[in-house]
């Protein structure tokens, strides 16, 4: 596998990419599956964290009795739920880091593909 610096040297710069090239990349199956893969991860992740987060102010605001219930010694549900938000955020971030490694690999293949076509087309 080439190192990042090697890739940078070989990668086409903005000037060598013609408008038609962007269209060609966008039309490839590889690019479409990259976008689809990203969407499959990011859309549910965003919806999940928004729902999980807003459950906190909503429950604290509208069900203060429930949230004041003591669940761990003197510590109530409100504090534990708030604390869990931190771990939720870290876990979602860790899962995204793992998934993004796959996206990087797919993007690298697309760039290689374009390099081949640029040479072929001239």
């Amino acid at each position, binding site marked *: 596998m080439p190192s990042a610096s090697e890739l940078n040297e070989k990668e086409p710069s903005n000037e060598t990419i013609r408008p038609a090239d962007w269209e060609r990349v966008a039309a490839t199956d590889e690019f479409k599956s990259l*976008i689809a893969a990203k969407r499959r991860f990011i859309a549910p992740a965003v919806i999940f964290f928004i729902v999980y987060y807003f459950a906190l102010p909503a429950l604290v605001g509208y069900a203060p009795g429930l949230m004041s219930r003591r669940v761990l010694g003197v510590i109530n549900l409100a504090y534990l739920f708030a604390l869990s938000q931190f771990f939720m955020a870290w876990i979602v971030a860790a899962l995204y880091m793992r998934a993004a490694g796959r996206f990087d690999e797919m993007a690298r293949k697309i760039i290689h593909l374009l390099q081949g076509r640029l040479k072929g087309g001239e």
Partner: protein
Amino acid sequence: MSTALGMFLVFIAVTFYITWWAARRSTGSSAYFAAGRSLTAWQNGVAVAGDYMSAASFLGIAGIIAFQGYDGFMYSVGWLVAYLTVLLVVAEPLRNAGKYTMADVLAYRLSPRPVRAMGALSTLTVSAFYMIAQMVGAGALVSLLLKDTGVTFHTAVIAVGALMIVYVVFGGMLATTWVQIVKAVLLMGGTILLSLLVLKHFGFSLGNFFAAVTQVTYHDAQGNVVTQNFLTPGLRYKPPYGALDLISLGMALIFGTAGLPHILVRFYTVPDAKTARASVVWAMLIIGSFYILTTFLGFGAATIVGRDFIAKNGGTNMSAPLLAQTLGGDLFFAFISAIAFATILAVVAGLTISASTSFAHDFWTNVLHRGKERSPGEEVRVARVTAFVVGAVAILIAILLGPNANVAFLVALAFAVAASANLPVIVLSLFWRRFNTRGAVAGLATGLLSSLILILLSPSIMKGAAVFPLENPGIVSIPLGFLGAAIGALTGREPEAEAKFTELNVRANTGLGAEKAGAH
């Protein structure tokens, strides 16, 4: 109190050395505006944390928790979870598509002059509110700490402003970044130390600590002794509008962070999108740990120092420094105060560089001179002059507002404007092919105006006569920002913007053609 002054001076000396070192290294626009795009993931991550954990975080949250308990902790939660929006939605496409500013992403496929003009206006508005809040906070803090040495509010504000001008004008993004890194390390160190001292006070027993938190005693406004469980929600956000206000605040925090110009520009300082992503995760680790520890700072101040004492000795914002004094004596008090001062200074420098970059790059070069520098280095020269002007204006306004201006309210305003004006147009221009210039201008204008007007009509300004019942306008102004952008876009067609969406989409997702790390 001369110990505190001494510690301030040591910090200032260190930052001057950093500025001198950075000034020798940085030549050229990419070096000045984006630190040559050469920072590593951890460096940028720590700097993002340093840029973000402001006076509102360290002094403000500790104070709100110390006085109103659990509800203050809601700020801590929102300020971390907000980074998921940055990580999942904004950071990587922004790094791939832009160059120096937030408006770069909008100008990529939209008509550059109108969107840059509006983008610069919105950047300057957000930065101004944020910065004035920090300056007022700094002035109040420093004058209180150094009152024995004769330093007044005015002197303190002028000193903070002058220091920040030096960092930005001479050192650019590289110096600003390292000032933030030093500050973030100091702030984390101080916070961990203070938290350990709080735990030590309770015999290293979390059980004893939380037991004390459930029985905080203080005098209420009528002079009656009150014992209150500080873990109970609702001490700040009370019916009938408390729940809505809490949700509104949450919206401003969650969607505002990804629209804060001084945070967004940090992603241009790294070589590629992958590093930008990793730096967000570094930032989340530091910021999250810090905000969890606000539990000990805030509740510690409530239980160990007590509301009554804090109220008589400087007010809510002094909760954390007074906690340090009670637990560690005058030397530790001076140390924590110096950290608070460093915190403010670093944030102000970050704000100044993003505001002056936006003015020079978006407004001067691209709006006034249609994208051409008339002489080499003009953009950097304009940015330096702007930084000087921005600093001078901020000093002036902070002095006019005086030490009693409501700091938290100014910061909340910045988040609300960022969430209502900036985020909708950034998201729509990245993900919606049909989006166009009309939509961007309409979205920025609606978001900016609706959040400003609702704040003017809110209890924060109009007190009892408030027309709009919520402190935070987010729940109304954020949907309005999106609506304005969508309606604007749907009432006109712009074939060029739609055609260029493909290019933006490929570039944002693959990094093809993105700005490279500069060779020095």
